[in-house]
């Protein structure tokens, strides 16, 4: 679907020396993807993500959506923005409509849907995120934190994107609400067949939900692989200021201390299985 080749980007700083924020990044987002984008603060994640729907234009390189170059003259970026939805951090701070329904209709209306179409799209998106009819005419301000975030996500879904980019969607939420949000993201992915890009500092979440991980460091895409393969490189990630899931760290240290585990685990279940096997086997030997 969305493909980038050799993307570089520098902010134009008048007077100051140009500093490349993104360097030669090539990537591809395919149907059915659930990509976790990780990197330390300042690695260029936010700048990168803003390229995915044309909010920023690469200094060099090309991005194509379904084969069409988005930087070509005459290409309507508003079309791309319909296809690639961005949910920023704390999206509930951007709610402003007088009612939940009006707020959710705002985006699709701006994209040129008629009122009826926008309302239909808003209602089906609200249903998907679990906000029922009784909330349609409530003020967004009356909702709980988790509900507000769901409504904000519905506002982006109502534009019917094919790719949804979420920046730290669970920040500030308690474990239960967080789980609800991730469950929702998974449902969005499967029910609407939307590819997901999840930007997160929480490696546990990335390991649990993503099927592919992008590692961004110093403006370069250093790794593009499965969670298991990426998190196996504990030392490399550590050098980049990126942590690994706690259970990965623990099993990795056990390996370094001489336990013959096949690889570092990325989930507690996996670790328990490997360790049980090893500790039992030892007993029988």
């Amino acid at each position, binding site marked *: 679907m969305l493909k980038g080749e050799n993307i570089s980007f520098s902010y134009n700083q008048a007077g100051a020396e140009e500093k490349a924020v993104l360097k030669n990044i090539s990537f591809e987002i395919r149907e059915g993807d659930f990509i976790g984008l990780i990197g330390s603060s300042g690695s260029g994640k936010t700048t990168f993500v803003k390229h995915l729907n044309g909010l920023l234009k690469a200094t060099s390189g090309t991005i194509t959506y379904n084969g069409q170059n988005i930087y070509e003259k005459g290409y309507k970026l508003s079309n791309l923005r319909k296809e690639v939805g961005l949910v920023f951090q704390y999206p509930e701070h951007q709610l402003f409509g007088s009612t939940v329904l009006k707020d959710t209709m705002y985006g699709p209306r701006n994209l040129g849907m008629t009122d009826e179409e926008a309302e239909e799209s808003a209602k089906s998106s609200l249903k998907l995120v679990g906000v029922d009819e009784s909330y349609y005419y409530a003020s967004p301000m009356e909702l709980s934190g988790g509900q507000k975030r769901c409504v904000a996500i519905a506002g982006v879904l109502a534009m019917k994107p094919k790719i949804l980019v979420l920046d730290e969607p669970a920040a500030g939420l308690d474990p239960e609400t967080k789980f609800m949000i991730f469950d929702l993201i998974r449902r969005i992915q499967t029910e609407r067949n939307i590819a997901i890009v999840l930007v997160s*500092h929480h490696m546990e979440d990335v390991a649990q939900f993503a099927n592919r991980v992008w590692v961004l460091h110093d403006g370069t895409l250093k790794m593009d692989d499965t969670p298991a393969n990426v998190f196996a490189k504990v030392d490399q990630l550590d050098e980049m200021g990126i942590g690994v899931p706690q259970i990965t760290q623990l099993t990795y240290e056990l390996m370094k201390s001489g336990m013959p585990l096949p690889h570092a685990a990325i989930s507690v279940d996996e670790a328990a299985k490997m360790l049980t096997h090893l500790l039992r086997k030892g007993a029988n030997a």
Partner: protein
Amino acid sequence: MIKIDNIVHKYTVWDDENTKNEKVVLDGISLDIPSSTFMAILGPNGSGKSTLAKHLNVLLLPDEGTVWIDGINTADVDKLWDIRSQVGMVFQNPDNQIIGTSVEEDVAFGPENKNMESSKIRTLVESCLKRVGLWQKRKESPTRLSGGQKQRLGTADALAGVPKCIVMDEPTAMLDPEARKEVIRLIHDLNKNEGITIVLITHHTDEVADADQIVLMKEGHIIGKGTPMEIFSNKELLRAAKMDIPPRVELGDKLREAGIPVPESILTEEKMKSEILRLYNETKGKGEATC
């Protein structure tokens, strides 16, 4: 240091334009926070954690019950500023409390407002910035700081009030893992080296393993209180408070279920690692002691 006696706090909610209703957010909370304690408060969104925190430096007053800060009743209006300087606050989003155009001016803002002599302010600002490790950055604009540095600046702002206690409301929620560690280390230092009482509100169970006391809140009540060991070995309680079980604790449970004799109540990663290695060496029959 802080004594909370059976406080109740209610917010007004509007069911519709004309019907007013009350929502009880704190429902009879009693808690003692002794001087120099490191106390962590955990609980789901909406459990009343932040509302409780706001009672500790009189941003809110209880509807019923009393809060005593170093023997002063927070309802005593004449003592308001005394109390506020005893208890500093650091919030989730540092941008909400940073106002200076440079790092040092930001820290000087509080003392200036208290009409402190400028020579004293200078010494105080220097000491605060050095303690949080931002002295080198004193001339810079706060907007150029990273998230972790901003949170340390927020802490320096609080320190400039020369507080005996600092209340931190999810100070790490917006930070990356490195910056989180940095901030947590800083507050532990302030607690250990200077004896400053710390009240840390968080969702991250891995940040509280070293706390003296953990308080679990739910729906305006305290549903559990104890040392990290007591709290994390009580799975039912954790589930009731909707808290994550730390991965190493969960691993211990799973291994025990599978018949591997890992001792209960292991809290730190180091300990878990050495326990597993010990078991492994035992099963190998060599009996080497590795730690």
